[in-house]
């Protein structure tokens, strides 16, 4: 521990040097810090990500519980593409292991989309296998937005929808329109989102 004490002493001397060159500041005695007053590492990161959000106008976030940044809702209204003007609701949950673990995002509407299944699971690579702590909340929301502008039939979760998109784009467009008004496609009822 001698080595560490030497390091500490050296740093203290440097700080005192630096303090001397600046104007003197009044010192007060330190009060002990209460134990549970520290902000968690996950919360630090979420706040940073939220402050740095730069979202397209098609995405709105709402916070049903203002006391927590760990849970919020997302509303997506695409301004072009097949899903133009639909109102899609998502729930976003972040756990205390963020950013090691990605946020969990679910679609709350039952919708006709090649990459979203009827339970609301979303097939977006950066939400699972390609998630990395260097990505941010912003990148996920942009990715989600992209999924509605360019549905990807090569990685389907809803196989029928994906097949239709590959075979007959006109029919797919019709199906999307009908489903968004609330109706049956291939015997499955989809929620009204328009």
């Amino acid at each position: 521990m001698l080595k560490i004490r030497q390091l500490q002493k050296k740093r203290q001397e440097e700080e005192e040097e630096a303090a001397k060159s600046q104007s003197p500041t009044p010192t007060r005695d330190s009060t002990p810090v209460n134990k549970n007053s520290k902000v968690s590492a996950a919360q630090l990161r979420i706040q940073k990500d939220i402050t740095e959000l730069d979202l397209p106008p098609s995405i709105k976030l709402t916070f049903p519980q203002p006391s927590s940044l760990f849970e919020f809702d997302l509303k997506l209204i695409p301004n072009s593409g097949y899903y133009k003007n639909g109102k899609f609701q998502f729930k976003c949950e972040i756990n205390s292991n963020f950013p090691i673990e990605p946020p969990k995002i679910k679609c709350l509407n039952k919708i006709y989309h090649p990459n979203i299944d009827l339970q609301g699971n979303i097939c977006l690579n950066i939400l699972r296998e390609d998630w990395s702590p260097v990505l941010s909340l912003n990148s996920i929301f942009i990715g989600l937005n992209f999924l509605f502008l360019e549905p990807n039939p090569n990685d389907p979760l809803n196989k029928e929808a994906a097949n239709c998109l590959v075979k007959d784009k006109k029919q797919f467009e019709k199906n999307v329109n009908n489903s968004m008004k609330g109706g049956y496609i291939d015997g499955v009822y989809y929620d009204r989102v328009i």
Partner: protein
Amino acid sequence: MRDHSSVIPLLKTIGPFNEVADDYNYQSAWDRLSTSKILVIGAGGLGCEILKNLALTGFKNIHVIDMDTIDLSNLNRQFLFRHKDIGKSKSEIAANFIKQRIGEDNINIIPFFGKIQDKSIEFYSQFDLVISGLDSIEARRWINATLVNLSSSNNKIIPLIDGGTEGFRGQSRVIIPSFTSCFECTLDLMSQKITYPVCTIANTPRLPEHCIEWAHLIQWNIEFGSTKKFDADIPQHIQWMYETALNRAKIFKIEGVTKQLTLGVCKNIIPAIASTNSIIAASCCNEAFKLLTDSNPYLNNYMSYSGDYSIYTYTFENNKRSNCSVCGSLPKKIYVESYKTLQQFIEDIKDKQEIQIKNPSISSISGPLYMSSPTELQKITKNNLSKKLNKLISNGDEIVITDVNLPISLRLIVYFTSDEKDPELN
């Protein structure tokens, strides 16, 4: 009396690489063995090895924390436990075993059966050194952040030696809070949990794991909805998972779905290798010995070991990350007059030249106080602006300030002064 003949020569000779040769003294180095207080976090695969090594080296004051109980599958490598101990606390049984082996008069070893988060800052500040042998990233982040905070709030430097193993691979590292890189600095380098694309699981399974994940992630919810939560410790749940996955595997002609693999995938189990644990624990305890006695230079600061393709070790210095959210900006103390509202406080902060922020967002442990963006959060939190800061947080609370112009999160510990009245109102 115990035999220390193997340790004494190491301490009596001042080695050619001793970095503090002028101040080094045999007697005080020897005394460190009995005076140093060491905390061992985790009494599992690594923990058993670490406790055994420390006790046999001659350290006399050891605390050990573990929240787990002993399981049958632990017994092949966690050698402080016996079949009769199954179901009992790991830390308590490990401490008892060591005490019996070393002799109760020769060692003071205190177990705690619980979570590390349940202990106070004061508890952690009593130690000279912490060694962790944990499998959880969350717990590692917590102890790392706690020790880094102690280094700034109490000016108390407690080295953290972190060991980790995964199959044939492992690492040991020395973290000197605020001096070297911390655990959070290198979080981006952690290997990810193995996951498979949902679309592959849903439509084009190729591996037995895909079938198990299909049962686990998709079918369970369809079958039982969100009301019944899957629990990998309930045998019936695993049985259902196994059968469902097996049926799917048959349809796609995939072989290899077994009950053991099902359990492994659902619980995300990575097989533990006993010898990897002993190698890494040995390295950790060597570093503890060197750090506490100053007999030799300690590891600077990361050693990785790989035993799966022959044997390879590599030692390097992990750099501190300047924008690390834990050690990049150590919390600074700030004194705030009690009459100040959140709005006034924000204006004060903006006036401070060294901080350089224009539109800050502020939160405390209990959640956001004021968020300047997005609009939705700004609307919810703007009511707080007219409230007094000392009504929103208590004395000694930490607040976090972020701003688009700020590459880091600024952390401040707020202390209120007794000025109750705003002089400008008089």
